[in-house]
């Protein structure tokens, strides 16, 4: 699935916005109702959003410019914990901060659906290659 992007201009300095991406208090102020975070590469990123347990880990933490986390839903086969990737890029502006978000690596349901067909096709190709 193509990346999903979103941007917003915030009348607050990058440091303040950044704090909202790396602290439990900051996270529950806008994203979810409960958060457990360890903002270092490989550290836990866990936020419960309206009963949906979003789970992943921090990939990149570069204050006050960049936060990258992996993102998925615990126990879910379609969007498993850590399976997609959310990047927050902060740029200082005259009035505060420009935030550019990219959500990448979302599932390709089409591919999952045709997985069996592809496997058969590849097996045929492999057979054809051996025969040749």
């Amino acid at each position, binding site marked *: 699935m193509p990346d999903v992007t979103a941007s917003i201009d915030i009348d607050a300095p990058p440091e303040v916005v950044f704090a*909202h991406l790396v602290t439990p208090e900051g996270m529950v*102020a*806008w994203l979810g109702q409960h958060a457990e975070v360890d903002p270092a590469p490989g550290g836990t990123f866990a936020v419960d959003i309206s009963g949906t347990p979003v789970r992943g880990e921090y990939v990149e933490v570069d204050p006050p410019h960049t936060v990258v986390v992996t993102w998925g839903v615990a126990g879910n086969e379609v*969007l498993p914990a850590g399976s997609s990737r959310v990047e927050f890029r902060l740029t200082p502006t005259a009035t505060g901060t420009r935030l550019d978000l990219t959500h990448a690596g979302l599932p390709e*349901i089409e591919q999952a659906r045709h997985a069996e067909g592809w496997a058969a096709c590849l097996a045929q190709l492999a057979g054809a290659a051996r025969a040749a």
Partner: protein
Amino acid sequence: MTAEPAPLDASLRALADGNRRAILAVVRDGPRPVGEIATEVEMSQQAVSHHLRVLRGAGLVTETRDGTRHLFAVRSDGFSVVRQFVEGFWPERLAALKAAAEAAVARDA
């Protein structure tokens, strides 16, 4: 203006089952009756009916009537459900982040 991840959760749970994904694949090309779907996915009509109820509850299939037959069709596949959710989710959440960050600045001022 409410971000409601609940529908996504329902959709994801519905899609997490391989049998239901197989059923979605069958009804993708047009409305089909339960019996035909059951034959194609090699499951009992009872099991297919159960899965169709879950899929309908998650908003993934619609049910229409053709005389006495009930026909099921794809309303929205998992691909578009996840995409629509994520596309609607982030702008609302970022608006909330903006409000929270600006309130924090106002508090410290």
